[in-house]
């Protein structure tokens, strides 16, 4: 790996992060944060800009040299780029709200990876031993805006974003794109990656604007509607309220957010085709149909199981399990967990075991390939399902040529092997992370296992001590660092990060 070349690109990325922090300054000013906060935010924006600029020029290609970006550099740029983004992005948390560094890093990584696991609650211990007594209400608005913005930037991919807006980096090949964009099939829109990235970001911006407008139209404040939209489209899960979306208690908001969470979990290429006037393409895509069917089945079964029970919302009210209420909370929670967003309106931890268990199962599947969602992705699960069926069939027809098709294309053995090993790695990492989390925090199995899958699948809330109304603030620093690694692994789809462990990655 050419470390200078990688550092060069990452410097550019850090500068961009700086400018995005700077964009929070006017928001902070408009939201009437104290002057102290505004100045600190500006300083925290200038740090990455200056540091990035200096290292950008220091790592510039020497005269006559030309950086070549190969496979190794691609993986290096993406993984270290994300770590650098989180490292610089967590500065405002440390300097403005006095977070301890591991809490700040956890919160920022959770933001960029669109996990949405938060450490902010009434018991968070700050630097110097003080406690954050009022939870999110103690955090300046400018910082909350930055927290939601990290979601939005990470959702579509920060490295792809820099590819789209920084053509001078001249990185050929598609390693970067493939290393960051979820899913295994590359449904390329245009011959040049930079153009494809621009189109996808365009769709993303459009959908975000649409949701923000609809929420604002329904009476949410502009600040809240923007932050919520960032969290929705990125399938993140940070909300502006401590009690998440349940705190608004509005059927209108719930339904709008449910719809947009579902859309954020779809392949964005399909949205682009639909916007170009081909809405039927949705139903020609097998992955979408599978995703839609699973959503419907889960919603219906959970609705039935909720009928007649009493549902506790996240802001502590108890509502009756009428048909309407059951559908409302079931649909929201299914969309939120399935797409790996992690917003909550009801404390699903208290639901019947069937519902809770089904939601945990959905966590593993996650969104579609090419979406902003995490998890294993519907296309992979669908392919595994087909593959397993064909293996059963093979018992009868041992000499048949494998005919596993996804969207009519026959999948080669190479793709199948990658999907199979992805499945194994995902499950194995889930087990390892659960075990380590349980050991490091000395906690129960349910908490450790769901915390691990919630971070690995970029969902956010789990069950028990990390459930819908709880946070991760009680965990030990070592467990928090472990879970940030899980988030990064999950967001970059394992291989991109795992490849860095290989000694041959570092040796020439």
């Amino acid at each position, binding site marked *: 790996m050419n470390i200078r070349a990688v550092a060069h690109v990452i410097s550019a990325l850090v500068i961009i992060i700086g400018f995005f922090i700077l964009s929070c300054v006017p928001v902070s000013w408009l939201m009437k944060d104290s002057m102290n906060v505004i100045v600190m935010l500006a300083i925290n924006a200038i740090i990455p800009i200056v540091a990035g600029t200096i290292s950008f020029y220091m790592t510039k290609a020497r005269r006559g040299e030309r950086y070549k970006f*190969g*496979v190794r550099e691609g993986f290096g740029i993406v993984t270290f780029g994300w770590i650098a983004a989180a490292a610089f992005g967590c500065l405002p948390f440390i300097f403005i709200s006095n977070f301890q560094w591991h809490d700040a890093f956890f919160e920022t990584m959770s933001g960029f990876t669109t996990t949405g696991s938060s450490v902010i609650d009434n018991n968070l211990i700050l630097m110097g031993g003080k406690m954050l007594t009022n939870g999110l209400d103690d955090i300046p608005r400018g910082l909350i805006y930055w927290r939601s913005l990290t979601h939005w930037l990470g959702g579509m991919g920060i490295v792809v974003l820099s590819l789209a807006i920084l053509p001078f980096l001249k*990185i*050929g*090949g*598609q*390693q970067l794109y493939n290393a960051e964009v979820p899913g295994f099939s590359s449904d*390329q829109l*245009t*011959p*040049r*990656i*930079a*153009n494809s990235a621009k189109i996808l970001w365009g769709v993303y911006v459009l959908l975000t604007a649409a949701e923000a407008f609809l929420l604002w139209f329904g009476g949410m404040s502009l600040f809240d509607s923007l932050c919520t939209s960032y969290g929705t489209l990125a399938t993140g899960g940070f909300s502006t309220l401590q009690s998440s979306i349940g705190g608004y208690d509005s059927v209108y908001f719930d339904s709008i957010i449910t719809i947009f969470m579902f859309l954020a979990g779809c392949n964005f290429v399909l949205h682009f085709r639909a916007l170009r006037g081909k809405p039927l393409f949705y139903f020609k895509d097998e992955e979408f149909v599978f995703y839609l069917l699973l959503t419907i089945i889960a919603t219906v079964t959970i609705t039935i199981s909720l009928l007649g029970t009493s549902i506790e919302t996240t802001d502590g009210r108890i509502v009756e399990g009428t048909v309407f209420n059951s559908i409302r909370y079931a649909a929201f929670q299914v969309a939120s967990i399935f797409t790996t967003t992690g917003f909550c309106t009801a404390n699903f931890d208290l639901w019947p075991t069937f519902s809770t268990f089904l939601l945990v199962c959905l966590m593993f599947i996650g969104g579609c390939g090419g979406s902003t969602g995490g998890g294993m992705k519907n296309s992979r699960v669908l392919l595994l399902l087909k593959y397993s069926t064909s293996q059963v069939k093979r018992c009868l027809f041992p000499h048949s040529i494998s005919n596993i098709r996804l969207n009519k294309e026959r999948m*080669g053995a190479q793709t199948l092997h990658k999907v199979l090993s992805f499945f194994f790695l995902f499950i194995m990492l889930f087990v390892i992370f659960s075990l380590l989390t349980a050991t490091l925090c000395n906690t129960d199995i349910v908490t450790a296992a769901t915390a691990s899958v919630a971070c690995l699948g970029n969902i956010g809330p789990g069950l028990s001590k990390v459930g819908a109304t709880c946070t991760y603030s009680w965990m030990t620093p070592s467990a928090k660092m472990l879970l940030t690694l899980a988030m990064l692994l999950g967001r970059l789809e394992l291989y991109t990060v795992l490849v860095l462990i290989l000694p041959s990655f570092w040796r020439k």
Partner: protein
Amino acid sequence: MKIIIVGAGELGKYLASVLSHDKHDIVVVDRSDELLNRLKEHLDIMTVPGNGANIECLKKAGIKDTDILIAVSGDESANVLACQLASHMNIQNTVCRLDSVNFFSEEDNLNAKALNLHNIVIPAEECARKIFHVLSNKIVMEKILFSNQNAVMTAFEALPSSPITGARIKDISNTELMDTVRFAAILRDRKHITPHGDTIIVPGDKVYVAGRKSEVESVIKWNSPENSSISKVTIAGATRVGRNLTAKLYEAGYEVRIIEKDFAKGARLLDELKAGIMVINGDATDREVMIEAGVDSTDAFVSALDDDEDNILCAIMAKEMGARKVVTVTNKAEYANIIPAINMIDSGFSSSLVAVNTVLRQIQVKTETVSIEAILNRINACIFEFKVNKGSIVCNKRIDEIKFPLSTTLALVFRDNKVISATGALRFEEGDIATTVTSSDNVKALEPLFAKKGLLNL
């Protein structure tokens, strides 16, 4: 510009790499997933697996908003069909790769136009022509033609006995002749040297001389040792290149012998040419067969087998056995760069590289100012032709007043179809075409000098 390339073979691969680095949008169509994946690993292009001669597949590749279609797959009928489909979809510029000119028939009025093909490239034919050019004389290594018919650039080897050897370029005795030609580049120990007046030519240098055809001829003649003319040629392999070359050589009156392993192929060649040439049936890498073909006493040996590695070995064997000049053909463009490292091989040509040059010239994807003429086989350099625009930096300036990037040589200037040697005292006029030898990286530095001054390059 958006360009579809059908076929990810050697030629398609090379074209995709050159064109995509020139910031064009490239879509490559091929049947082999594996070839496409390999290509995609290091190029920013889109790939579509499938048959390029199928409308559905072309539509998937986005034929509707494509500017140029280049069909360079190994199957000539598929190429023709792909180009016709493209024309049907209103694409104004297509390039079609064919096996040989025999595809057309003059008496039946069957030509490219009748088949709706815009441009034709025949790699075997082009390569055969290139080889034919260097078979005129023992010391000639490469010959490059320009958009101007009268101009030529020839590379030849400076022998210890050549009159130019050992002298500084500005001191070379035959001043009258030297004033009319330009030393465009020198290749020494595989390195590109930009010649100056003070450069001393040492034995073994490959010297690129540019100028009017007749004058360049005289320079070659002046530097040729006695009996350097070639009359007996042995060709290994009745491949496409081999057959094309045989026909050319036979017409030009050379004595040609061919070695071909496959009896049927050899017999077919004889049937096709209907001429008095000798075909030896045997393996060209076999010593006995080589002796039977008289390689030890031949003037020139050309190895044109299908297998690149066999070609290289075969050429080395022939040289060892006593062939006076050996030329080898390779498919892979990468090999063109390493053949100069093999001292025993006098000249090497890559049919892909030759064809890439032709295609680039045909599609003229460069801007108004620049057109690429050739990528030099042996040096990592390109020949570019720049048009002097009105109001550009160089217009109405003496050449010695202009600052050119390092390692750039201004070779020739074409003015009203006349070839002028680019000496320091020459003043550029509007509409002149300047020919330069430079590395492809330098083009970006050169282009603004010749371009119109616009808002963008103030």
